[in-house]
């Protein structure tokens, strides 16, 4: 079941100077997010991630295209009961204490006082801020604000949680806490849609990923599918006891060869060359140490997409 459906979304902003063309933020972006998955929306700064999220939340109107959440158009007030949202670098009412803050957002979501009382303590405990319940938000660190922001996003137990750069500016411990929280939401059967430009975070926890650049969705799918598709994985072979110089054929097959003492390493472009190299090592009296397929990371895919001529030319304005 689709929770979010975005179809051919476009949005441009006036440049601010008369005569200058408008700046295109979204250029026919389409994507789907299904029930119960963690969907990572990956892209560099200025790619259109926040604009997409703002349109999803009804904070901004698109120029064209359709956006549906739970089958209803974006901005539908009733549907917002089922959604939790944390914007990028959030600023909250800093005169409120953490307890008052969560109570306020819970009341706005329609929760009654008796339900809220237990829920506020439970969530503050979950994000590790129970000790700070009576402290004003102006005395919170950035990491604490991010955590209390996450708590407000889920105070009403929403089915869909939308997070804009939830790990941005956090230290490694804070990032881990947020990651654990997102994984915990999936375990509860929630759908999480979050944007980020921090690739390892996305790679680590997302079921599916969408890569957006210059307002277009360049690729979407499971992380392993994305990093594996259309390219043959290279394989790293390590052995000892025989020098690569004595194995002429290996030098022809391998893309990289390295030797340190008695140990040698060769990288071959694909799985089918592995048998040839292993046979050669054995026939020359060498001992095989390891054979490791080189898994491409999401970062490589991301950088490769960014370097594609059409993307690069648009980025430099050519």
């Amino acid at each position: 079941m689709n929770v979010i459906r975005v179809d051919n979304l476009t949005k441009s902003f006036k440049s601010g100077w008369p005569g200058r063309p408008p700046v295109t933020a979204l250029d026919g972006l389409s994507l789907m997010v299904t029930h119960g998955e963690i969907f990572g929306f990956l892209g560099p700064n200025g790619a259109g991630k926040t604009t997409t999220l703002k349109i999803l939340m009804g904070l901004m109107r698109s120029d064209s295209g359709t956006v549906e959440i739970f089958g209803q158009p974006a901005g539908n007030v009733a549907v917002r009961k089922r959604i939790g949202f944390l914007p990028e670098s959030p600023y909250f009412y800093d005169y409120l204490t953490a307890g008052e803050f969560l109570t306020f957002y819970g009341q706005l979501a329609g929760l009654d006082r008796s339900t809220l009382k237990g829920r506020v303590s439970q969530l503050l405990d979950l994000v590790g801020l129970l000790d700070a319940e009576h402290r004003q938000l102006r005395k919170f660190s950035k990491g604490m604000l991010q955590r209390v922001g996450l708590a407000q996003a889920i105070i009403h137990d929403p089915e869909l949680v939308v997070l804009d750069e939830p790990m941005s500016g956090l230290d490694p411990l804070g990032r881990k806490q947020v990651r654990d929280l997102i994984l915990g939401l999936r375990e509860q059967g929630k759908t999480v849609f979050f944007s980020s430009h921090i690739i390892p975070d996305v790679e680590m926890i997302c079921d599916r990923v969408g890569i957006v650049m210059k307002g277009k969705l360049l690729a979407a799918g499971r992380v392993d599918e994305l990093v594996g598709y259309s390219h043959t994985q290279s394989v790293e072979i390590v052995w000892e006891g025989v020098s690569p110089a004595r194995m002429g054929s290996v030098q022809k097959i391998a893309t990289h060869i390295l030797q340190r003492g008695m140990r040698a390493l060769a990288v071959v472009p694909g799985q089918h060359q592995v048998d040839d190299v292993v046979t050669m090592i054995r026939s020359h009296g060498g001992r095989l140490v390891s054979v490791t397929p080189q898994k491409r990371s999401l970062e490589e895919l991301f950088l490769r997409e960014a370097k594609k001529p059409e993307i690069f030319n648009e980025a430099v304005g050519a």
Partner: protein
Amino acid sequence: MTMQPILVIALNTFRENLRDKILYNLLFFAVLLMGASVLLADLTIMEHHKIIKDMGLAAINLGGVMIATFVGIGLVSKEIERRTVYTIMARPISRAQFILGKYLGLVITLSVNVVVMMAVFLGTMLLYRVPVQMALFQAVELIFVEVLLVTALALFFSTFTSSSLSAIMTIGMYVIGHLTTDMKGFAQNSQSEAIMAFVTGLYYLCPNLESLNIKGQAATGIPVTLTYQALATGYGLLYATILVVSACAIFRKRDF
């Protein structure tokens, strides 16, 4: 439209005002002005009572208008500038409910403020044995209506401009609002038809705040008729309602 989200926003706005230093500074200034009336009355040979009443009413008026303006201009624009509006608008609450809640919150603050200042005023009058007349209550009621109207003006401007521009426009409208009678006279005496049309248009467009000003009359103890009181109140409230409805309409169309 349900009232619950409006009340939640209103009570939070009231709480924000209570925790804001600017409110106490303005309130202190108004009470100081009221205290100065006693000093000024002592320095004059005659009309001690009138000076205390004049200054007291002026202090309530000025205090209310200043709070309405300087708190009102940030009601919406500050929410947008600081991006607090993002998380609020992500809740099941309509944009009109948000605007109404913000307005109601400041109205609660202003009501408390007027009541406190009125209590100080009455205390001062009782201390100096100044007779308390009905006309004073009539003047304070119309001051409150004026304050509601100025709040609506500040709210209206803050839905589409920054805080500083809202302040300039609200103060500008307040000044023009007290000069509308002069404007009408100027239009009638003008030789240029274009100027006459422009100034006449401005006269009908701007709020006539002088119609809500009966302070001078009240200080002398002469009450206005109840019909005038009702008409002036109705006019002020209708104008404020139009501004709040317009603010809701503008806010509905905004992108954040």
